């Protein structure tokens, strides 16, 4: 599986580099603007920005026929799918790491960081990143990658929708519907992780039945 993960990372290398540059520039924004709301957005976007390119990468795999060729390698279909999910986890970890850079910049500037805001930002960013990949990959596997931009867009919206729904469900415990409540962030992240695990099994099932001409 290591070779497949390595390949996934190599084939996204230029996109990852671009995401790093954007995330690094965003980490410097607090030097100029010291707003909690802006900082919250930066952290969430930094976590999400690396996985947003996976749609393009999956499309490239399909057009170069790598998706077909990798079936001829001495690996099972479930291993191919597992390697994709490990890659998604690595991309989310890269996002988390660059978001820590932003917190380090804030700390170096002597900014006071609101822990509730940080929890919300990480909850929102992780929910967005994990839910998007959990929805995006099986859908692309099933219907193809031709409409990858639309699928990424839809997955992002669905992630926000899930968070709003959970905020509504948890309203009795959060003194009204509060999307920024730490409980909503925590439950959303846990829900996203469960969705991600379900998504893996669904993707394995789809891949097993998929034919590559």
């Amino acid at each position, binding site marked *: 599986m*290591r*070779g*497949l993960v*390595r*390949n996934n990372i*190599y*084939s996204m*290398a*230029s996109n990852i580099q671009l995401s790093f540059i954007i995330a690094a520039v965003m980490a410097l924004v607090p030097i100029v603007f010291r707003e909690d709301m802006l900082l919250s957005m930066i952290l969430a976007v930094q976590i999400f920005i690396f996985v947003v390119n996976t749609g393009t990468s999956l499309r*490239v*795999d399909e057009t*170069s*026929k*790598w998706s*077909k*060729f990798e*079936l*001829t*390698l*001495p*690996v*099972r*279909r479930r291993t191919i799918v597992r390697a994709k999910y490990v890659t998604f986890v690595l991309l989310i970890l890269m996002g988390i790491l660059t978001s820590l850079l932003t917190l380090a910049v804030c700390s170096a500037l002597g900014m006071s960081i609101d822990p509730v805001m940080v929890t919300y930002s990480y909850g929102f960013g992780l929910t967005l990143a994990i839910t998007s990949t959990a929805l995006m990959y099986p859908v692309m596997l099933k219907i193809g990658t031709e409409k990858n931009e639309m699928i990424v867009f839809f997955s992002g919206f669905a992630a926000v929708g899930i968070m709003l729904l959970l905020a509504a469900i948890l309203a009795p415990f959060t003194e009204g519907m509060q999307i920024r409540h730490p409980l909503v962030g925590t439950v959303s992240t846990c829900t996203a992780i469960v969705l991600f695990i379900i998504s893996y099994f669904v993707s394995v099932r789809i891949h*097993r039945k998929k*034919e*590559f*001409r």
Partner: protein
Amino acid sequence: MIYSLEVSNLSKRYPGATFSLDNVSFAVPQGSIMGFVGENGAGKTTTINCILNTLKPDSGVIKIFGEEMTEARTDIRNHIGVVFDAINFPETLTANRLASVFKDIYHHWDSDLFRQLIDRLKVPADVRIKDLSRGMTMKLATAAAFSHGARLLILDEPTSGLDPVVREEMLDLFLEFVENEEHSILMSSHITSDLEKVADYITFIHNGKIMLTEEKDALLYQYGIARCRSEQFQALDKSEYLAARKRGLQIDVLVPDKQRFSGQHRDITVDNATIDEIMVLLVKGDQ
């Protein structure tokens, strides 16, 4: 005889399409090159995709090295090299990066051999695949297929679109590969002249059905094309020929034993057959 690949009664139908593979059966003997010939849409790629499990056959059995090939048999796939008529690999990778990927996938990846092969074939190691010419891409795919201890190569149109010099280089590599008598190649191609140079056996496929499997030397030296006039053709028994095709006033007749046919029909001219002519007669002619 030991077979590296045995395909038995393979059938595959695409939903909503009229084309189907119909009980395809053939076998590639160990130590040989099998040319797989047919017109566009005859079923060559579908057969190869079923062998490689990228398509799921409706029925039939595929045995590789005497064992049934299934999705779970990664041990068998460790010994199969594949070249498709496409880019094959992620376009953003270089040959060097591809090698580091395959090193972690194939149990017997030989980095030194891969390096030697890409040097010999003059494939740049640090240029992205999307910037390589088609010839270079196919050479890279061939080098990769050779570098992991494969005992069977499955090649789908590996020389199509290549210039004669590159094609010759590729054919030389294939011949070197089968110098080891445990190695075998299944190679589909439109370029029958390539198969005449390297193949030991030829299998013809048409409309999803196998028309003929024969030793190449038998096709070239034993088979023949009888040039008949209409009345000569009418006098022939159906068991004497495999296919016939009217060409103007002449009827070309494919006969399996030109010497015997000439002996029985001294007034009919019988020419040597090329693979191209045999294919045209099998595809266009009446059986």
